[in-house]
């Protein structure tokens, strides 16, 4: 019996006639950290959209903890413990930072749609939200509407919304994109901290982050996973070198 946290079998997705995801197989163990890498337009975000229920695959199967989730709505998948962040920041623009984070934790805290209890009385939830806000270093922006945050603050909030609900399978789509080096370091440290014991899939372009964070790396090129293995093996893989990593590593080398 499969006990993968996440298992994709022959997943395909076409927009109109264009096949974007062309038969992806991926089995992620519980507690594993997986970096998804690949060139722009390879279909990484689309893959996350399929897993999280934003789009429905054209064919194939996606299992979360062994349960088929294809055809389920995003909220159903979220309730099963899968949380995701977005490459393009997707937050509650008029709500304050605190309210954003609290909303993201509300359903899973058991409150669901309740309207007989004031939010202010939910001490446990409020404390947890304050703590998360502090660890995101957004404390001083607590009551500021999310739309007024700086770019990197919004990125932090984006990831905060994803982890606030306590999901055990986390998908992060380029969480550190557009951040400075020091911000990235801080942020990766945070991601590592808050995803202890959880299954993590993250799309990442910074190879330093990828090799430092990931247990395994999935290389997605042209809608296909051409390699899925430990960092060392992926680095040595001839196919990967040819298709993607060679160029990237050369570029990184040139920068260093």
């Amino acid at each position: 019996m499969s006990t993968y946290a996440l298992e994709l079998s022959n997943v395909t997705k076409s927009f109109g006639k264009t096949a974007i995801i062309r038969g992806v197989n991926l089995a992620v163990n519980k507690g594993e950290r997986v970096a998804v890498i690949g060139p722009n337009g390879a279909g990484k975000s689309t893959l996350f959209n399929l897993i999280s229920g934003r789009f429905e695959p054209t064919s194939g199967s996606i299992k979360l903890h062994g349960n088929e989730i294809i055809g389920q709505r995003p909220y159903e998948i979220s309730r099963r413990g899968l949380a995701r962040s977005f490459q393009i920041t997707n937050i509650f623009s008029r709500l304050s930072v605190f309210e954003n984070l609290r909303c993201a934790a509300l359903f899973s805290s058991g409150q669901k749609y309740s309207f007989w209890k004031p939010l202010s009385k939910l001490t446990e939830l409020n404390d947890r939200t304050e703590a998360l806000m502090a660890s995101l270093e957004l404390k001083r922006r607590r009551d500021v509407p999310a739309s007024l945050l700086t770019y990197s603050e919004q990125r932090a909030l984006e990831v905060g919304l994803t982890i606030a609900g306590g999901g055990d399978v986390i998908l992060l789509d380029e969480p550190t994109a557009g951040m400075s080096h020091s911000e990235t370091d801080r942020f990766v440290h945070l991601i590592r901290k808050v995803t202890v014991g959880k299954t993590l899939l993250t799309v990442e372009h910074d190879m330093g982050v990828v090799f430092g964070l990931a247990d395994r790396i999935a290389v997605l090129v042209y809608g296909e996973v051409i390699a899925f293995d430990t960092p060392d093996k992926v680095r040595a893989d001839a196919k990967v070198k040819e298709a993607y990593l060679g160029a990237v590593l050369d570029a990184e080398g040139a920068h260093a």
Partner: protein
Amino acid sequence: MSNAAMKPLHFKPLNGVRIVVWSAFAVILLLLPVLARSNFAVTLLCLTGIAAIACMSYNMLLGQAGMLSFGHAVYTGLGAFVAIHAMNKIGGGWPIPMWMIPLVAGFAGLGFGALLGFVTTRKAGTPFSMITLGVGELVFAAALMFPEFFGGEAGINSNRTAGSGWMHGLGLNFGGQIQVYYLIAIYLFLCTAAMYAFTQTPLGRIANAVRDNAERAEFVGYDTRWVRYLIVMASSFFAGIAGGLTAINFEAATADLVHGTRSGGYLLFTFLGGVGFFFGPIIGAVLLIFSLVVLSELTKAWQLYVGIVFLIMVVFAPGGISSLLMLNLRRIKYGEWRKMRWPYAGMVFFGLIALWGFAAIVEMAYQAQVAAGSGSVVTVARIPMDASVLASWLIAAAVLLFGGICFEIWRRKFNKVWGEGEERIAEAIKKAEAAIV
């Protein structure tokens, strides 16, 4: 720093403020009819109180959940019809007291919200608006098709003094308008408190989240359609209460209570009052009754003025009056208000002059085109103007031009002062944030 030491940073003495605000609200409701003195004023207060409940219930949709409904009068109106039938049942011997009628109507509203909302909330955004428009038309058509329930053209009458019970025995029989006022005031207070409390609950907050970003709300576990449905039901409940109070107030219900014109009125005046703050719709309700009853007495062209004010607000102050008030309160808080006294005075002074010129043109045009039978002279703010004399038109146009130009000059001064203050406030906020560890 320990956790305990950090806590007070976010402590806001809101509880004290809240008690003061709610007490003041209660005292004002209590004293208003005493200050009003005339029967007409009490009638106005009654209408305003009912409209306030209706507009606040409308804002549960528009302001709090981002749902632009074109059919809110369906729920106030159907509530009123159920109420009028229930009142007649009391007349026929039903053992419930008259003061419970608004509650009956509230549950009727809730029921219709559950029924019709199931259809309207299937979609969000523009499709939602369109469906509410369709449902509104449907219900109005039904109101004319089923005269047994809606009473056809004449509507249905009732008698609010019917019934019995110990309070009835004490003289609480709603014979006089003042008793009706206090009934409305009590319902207004309770409904306001309940609707405010609702905004502070998980569902109330998730409604805000769905308004801001429905997609993200789905990804944190919320079925946004279900959220919309629950909000429509809650809103319809309070709308129904407003309808029940209408039935008691008029002792009648007619089909125009469910008409789209009325829905449009709720939308327009809730917007004018301001959807961004909880109390905005109360201001909207005051303006609604003022326009409907007072302004319409002053001028036949009242809808034109309302329309123009609406346009100006949509373009220049989309947050409505309440947001203007709050922006000024913020100025006061940061000690930035005094500098704007003169720009404000200038704008108001020349704005009024321009308004006179504009009103003179409108009123003369109206007199010449529509009411020519009663002569060509109209008085505009006590000044008689003869629409048949060219000079009147020239004077009005000149006044409008003069007022408009001076207004614009002062508006620019105002913008400059406002902008400078804005910078200082931003600076102060930054400093305050930096002080938070």
